[in-house]
């Protein structure tokens, strides 16, 4: 069995301490140790973006990152965007624009879209397309995803 270690970090605003094998990836810890299944496994190789989460404000592919590297840091997953009473504006916009079909890629897509919109108020269409290049969707053809993000960016201007 792998060597285990205890780590502590903040997950969606709450303090968490877990003991995990040092070889475990962040995605596996979220899904299998913490039961946070909103973040998806779809490739495990950092090529599809379905496992995208926020780490200290930046987006990362959680399938590539060792869980031990979460120690002392701030994680936000798709479950952390919604408030008690309402969907996050990016989530709501995806719903309203019909950007969700099977929805499996959407947790990662929404995390990345929110990061792009938050960090670049002048986000152009080209920036947005480039910024979502690492998030694969097989259902939608991206058109409604782009509409959904653009609507949020424009509403914030």
């Amino acid at each position, binding site marked *: 069995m792998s060597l285990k270690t205890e780590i502590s970090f903040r997950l969606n605003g709450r303090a968490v301490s877990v003991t995990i094998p040092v070889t475990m990836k962040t995605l596996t810890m979220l*899904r299998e140790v913490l039961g*946070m*299944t*909103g*973040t*998806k*496994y*779809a*490739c*495990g*190789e950092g*090529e*599809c973006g*379905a496992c995208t989460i926020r780490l200290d404000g930046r987006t990362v592919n959680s399938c590539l990152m060792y869980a031990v590297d979460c120690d002392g840091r701030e994680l936000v*997953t*798709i*479950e952390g*965007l*919604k408030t008690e009473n309402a*969907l996050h504006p990016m*989530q*709501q916009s*995806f*719903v*309203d*624009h*019909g950007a*969700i*079909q*099977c*929805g*499996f*890629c*959407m*947790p990662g897509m*929404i995390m990345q879209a929110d990061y792009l919109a938050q960090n670049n108020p002048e986000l152009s269409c080209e920036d*947005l*397309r*480039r910024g*979502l*290049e*690492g*998030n*694969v*969707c*097989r*259902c*939608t*053809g*991206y*058109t*409604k*995803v*782009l509409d959904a993000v653009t609507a949020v960016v424009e509403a914030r201007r």
Partner: protein
Amino acid sequence: MNRKSSDTPIEKTTLIGKRVRKPDAPDKATGKTRYINDMVLPQMLIGKILHAGRPHAEIVSIDVSAAEKLPGVHCVLTGKDAEGLRFGFVRDNVALKNRVRCEHDEIAAVAAETEEIADRAMALITVEYRDLPGVFTPEDGREKDAPQIHDDFPDNKSLHFEFRHGDLAAAEAASEIIVDNVFRVHHVTHCCMGTSCAIADFDSNGKLTIWSQTQYPYNYKMDLAPALGMHPGDIRVMQPPVGGAFGSKLDVYPYEPIAALLAKKTGRPVKVMFSREEEFRSSPTRQPAVIHMRTGCTRNGTLTFRSADVLLDNGAYTSWGPTIPVVMMRTTTGHYRVPVVHFNAQAIYTNNPYAGSFRGYGNVQTTYATAQQMDMLAEQLDMDPIDFHLKNAQQSGETTPQQAFLRECALDECLRTAAQASDYSAKHRRYTLAREQQGRYKKGIGLASSIHNAGGAKIHKSDGCGTILKVDDYARVTVITGASEIGQGIDAVINLIVAEELGIPLEHVTIVNDDSDIAPWDVGVHASRTTFIAGNGARRAAVKARQQILNAAARMTEIAAQDLDLRGGFVVREDCGTKVIKLEKLLRRMHFQPEPELVMVTDYYEPNSEPEGADHRSDHSAAYSHAVHVAEITVDTHTGEIRVDRITSAQDVGRVINRMGLEGQIEGGIAIGLGYALSEEMQLEKGMLKNPCFRDYKVLTAPEMPELDLHFIESNCAEGPYGAKGASELPTIVIAPAIANAVYNATGIRFFNPPLTPEKVARAIWDRQQTETGPSADR
């Protein structure tokens, strides 16, 4: 004096054609949806499969003793545990094999307490193989001395299809122009974002519950049963949310009976879930084929005949892939008015991965050929392609040689709309002239069209769908439908239809369709049938409930039922909208009266189509539809890169039901078609996949998605719900030949073998520059 708001009359409105949200979207957006991949059951074990990793071999010996002894391993199964349990379209497959016929063949399976233990157990299994010479193309498989893949399928012959109509020799003699080409279409795969997954569990009475991604739950029982030696009636199919399907879940694949065999042996629930690499290697593909097509016409541009000789690379086993000729011949015979048609298709076993069903189902492959030959003929005739298409376009009331009756045909309007919106003819002329000029970047425009069944396809004995609808004391409606939801949005369509008929808010409709013990029969999500068939079923059930409610209201109010309507949660007067009684109040009165009644109705909708017979002459769909795509592209003649600038789409959708969902289906369908045309290809070397990852298998991403201009043509199908036709496959079908025709318009080079990758395009341009002998031959 102000009237009280509760007295305000309610105007008649309609939801048909409006933009309606998918009811499951908020949970999907927040990560709350529990997909099958997320599911964990108490005591659940993890199942893992050992794949052969070689294309063709005998198994000399297999030793699982070390794996069995590993702590945490509950069982190890091999070929002897599945002996005789043949399944599949022609019963040529078993869940675990004693001989290897393709790279991903399942040799052993482990159930263990964790994934890590299962992986370690797999590494402890030793297998000694004796490799055999393989067959990797259908042409090689036909050779006299070719290695035989199945003992009981001589000459490697799998399925064969034939259709003949008219005198081909006479039609050829009467043709002044004939085009004759060989198209080779490639292996691609579905790339569902949620990898393949099944969870199986037996109860103590021997009944199996299987949580599955299937998109055809009722036939699935029938197909799964022989792989387990069970009666189909002892299988319960649960359908949790899935991460895409696109046709890939229209059959039973070995991992599903393997999960069940492991569950049976261990007495515990077992989950088998693929890694992405396994998904690429072991899930179905689109059917590759070699299509030799000939089309003829007269000097004045009237089509005279079409013939197609098709050789299918069956792969190692027969799933739905080799049955695609049923659709291929419909397009060969029905894509424009073709008086004489010969179609012949033979599937040949190879040691390649095997094809299943994939959105477009044979029509993607055939239309790649037919639509390019239409373009070639127009050029040889020196006719504007649009005029050539219009001259041969079928009209409402015509019947194809296969007896498909085109009741409402809008091909004409689709052609005119797409051509006009894209300024096709002027651009086509301009780019043709610009071809000879200097310049690195060349623009091109290409048009393609096709026909597809749009009212189901009666390839089974039944093409029906059952619906049970109940209205409770609070006017909340539950619709129990056979139709499966795989992300395509039948949930929103049924919500809309039921809310429309019963005058209630969309949010007051709940759909139950995830349990085969509850929901009634349906054929499955295929053939662009679900909005048409399940939509009709939901509408008919809702109309029955509506009538029961209005009759009860009439008895209580002494207003005739036909003078009443349901709007905004009220029974109102039909003429002025004045409220008569709140719907939920009426329902409670109906329930709690001396002669109580509940509103619960059933419906079984079977479309009026004819079964696809052995002679392939039948009106097998209740509706047919056409789509026309115009692709505008820019080719970088130095690098061979194709940028798709704009797609104009005109499609006969019958009538728009949920506009937002329909747009989503067309947009997504175009994206899958663009991947097929431009970048996606399973690179197989002697049956071994060389690119089992998204890095090397290029699906379309956001930057490559072109601007889309969608036009919905509403032909108002008499049999369809509110006039609607099925719509989801045509956008995938028509895109690749539109791109290929545009590339020809830009460069003068024909591409017969998709995908049109930069390497292939640059190479063709380079070769032509070297030879300078005009349009190039087969690529």
